[in-house]
């Protein structure tokens, strides 16, 4: 049976990473003594809420523009922690979303938090708001809310794009303490310039493990570290193999469809190296055995 050469190594490597993560989740079991380094952005959460409580002003949370995906869910999990702490001190919260599915999940999570704390009477149905699903209409609405309500602490965590600086600078202008983190690398510098604390890259995903120390989450974090180590090793192997092979002379050339030709002796080219072919699928030849066609279908098989 003919299939595309889809770069089996990339698939196999992904499966290996998945194995590392799952293995460590199950290995972590009930152990609680696993170490996680200090992350200032997460340590600052309590400080920010405390400040809002002292000033009697609301805490603002924005989970970005992303759809309901792993990033938004992670942001909402951090916001659940913020909400829990704010609920205990009767600090008002505002959670603004631009995506309707995120809004509904956020509302459920916030209500659950108040309920689990036995403080459902403090729950304000309007604390979670869907503002607009248009990027700059949402930015304008959040900016207006920050200025009107004079939020004392703001949390911008999730997928942010061009609107990130509008949020951060508006909140900065009123002196709000800001904790931010975006999975978009292009926005992280803006947050670093305008916010007090920034979660960079996978610190954002480490947040729930850091805040709760649940074995499943900490195990997952260790699995991620194993995966990073294996990526480093793979990079080193790739780097060495390419460096060695590029300095070797060859008389064989393999084209993109996998056919080899005898050619004049030359130094190995980049697209002739093993590492290149492992990650770059070759163009497949036409089907050796054409497929049959459904009855009534016009034209023949390929």
């Amino acid at each position, binding site marked *: 049976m003919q299939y595309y050469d889809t770069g089996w190594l990339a698939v196999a490597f992904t499966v290996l990473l998945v194995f590392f993560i799952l293995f460590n989740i199950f290995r972590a079991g009930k152990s609680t003594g696993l170490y996680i380094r200090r992350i200032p952005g997460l340590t600052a959460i309590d400080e920010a809420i405390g400040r809002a409580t002292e000033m009697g002003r609301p805490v603002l949370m924005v989970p970005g523009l992303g759809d309901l995906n792993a990033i938004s869910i992670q942001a909402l999990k951090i916001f659940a922690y913020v909400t829990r702490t704010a609920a205990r001190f009767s600090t008002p919260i505002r959670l603004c979303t631009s995506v309707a599915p995120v809004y509904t999940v956020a509302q459920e999570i916030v209500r659950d938090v108040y309920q689990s704390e036995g403080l459902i009477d403090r729950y304000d149905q309007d604390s979670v708001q869907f503002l607009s699903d248009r990027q700059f209409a949402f930015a304008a609405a959040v900016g207006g809310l920050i200025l009107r309500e004079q939020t004392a602490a703001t949390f911008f965590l999730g997928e942010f794009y061009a609107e990130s600086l509008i949020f951060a600078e508006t909140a900065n202008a009123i002196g709000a303490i800001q904790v931010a983190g975006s*999975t978009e690398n292009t926005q992280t510098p803006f947050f670093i310039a305008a916010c007090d604390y920034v979660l960079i890259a996978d610190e*954002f995903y480490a947040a729930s493990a850091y805040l709760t120390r649940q074995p499943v989450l900490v195990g997952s974090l260790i699995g991620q570290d194993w*995966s990073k180590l294996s990526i480093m090793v793979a990079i080193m192997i790739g780097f060495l193999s390419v460096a060695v092979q590029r300095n070797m002379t060859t008389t064989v050339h393999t084209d993109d469809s996998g056919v080899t030709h005898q050619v004049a002796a030359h130094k190995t080219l980049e697209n002739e190296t093993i590492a290149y072919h492992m990650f770059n699928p070759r163009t497949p030849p036409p089907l050796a055995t054409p497929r049959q066609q459904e009855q009534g279908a016009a034209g023949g098989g390929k």
Partner: protein
Amino acid sequence: MNFGHPNGPALLWGIGTAVVGLLLTYGLSNAPPSWRRPAVTICTFLAGAVYVAYFLWPKAQDRGPHDIPRGFSESVAFWLQDAVPVAGNIANTLSIFLLGLGIYSLMRIHLKRLFGMHKDWFFSGVVIVSMLTMVVAGYWNYYLVKYGPNAAVLSAGPAQWTPLNRFYDILFDGLYQTMDAAMFSIIAFYILSAAYRAFRVRSVEATILLAAALLMMLSLMGPFVQLWNSGVGGHSAFVDNFKIDEIAMWIRKSFQEPGIRALQFGVGLGALAMGLRLWLSLERGGVN
């Protein structure tokens, strides 16, 4: 209702989906709490399994629209290829239901503020009026352009537009798009104020940032590049490395790109771990 219209079956599908969706919502809302979690877990696992299998299973080569699979492996590949868009459509349908809840939230908050004459009630009125006007004008315009008696003429261009089409155009292109662009433009001022703070020399890190950014900016200024390079170029191959565009390239290739890739590895692994925990329902409840 003319179901023989090209969009007829789509309309039927829409109505059918809405009915099924409402029934499912009602069923889940009234199901015993002990059933809900397993139901959500199973649905999540099955939906995720389609995508996981699609990623892992070899793709069938050169599939035509009427091809019959040649064996078990290819049958599975065909099935997965067909199943992925269906799973995506189900997710989209769910999103539409949730959009209704979002709009309900928006209306509730602003109507309450408007009728209660709370602070800034006037702006709530503007939001509601704007939204309703846009919805009515948008759908009316869509109907006229797509299905109206002069649909073909209206689609041809603005010369034949009716007052309603022009009204919609003023709302969308004249107001909404312009205000959108204005908001985007404001970023230029915010970048300036953020850059001013970022470039203040307060620590070693800030100084390094300032120096790197300064070199990058200077490397993009043609006359300055010319001046700098004429000063250092042409003496020796080694000194040529200190041309400003070479330095900028070195910063980009040796620090910026590897740094960004390392961050991307971290973000990708974090998303993978989070996705796995969600798919296998290992991620439960809020942060305790």
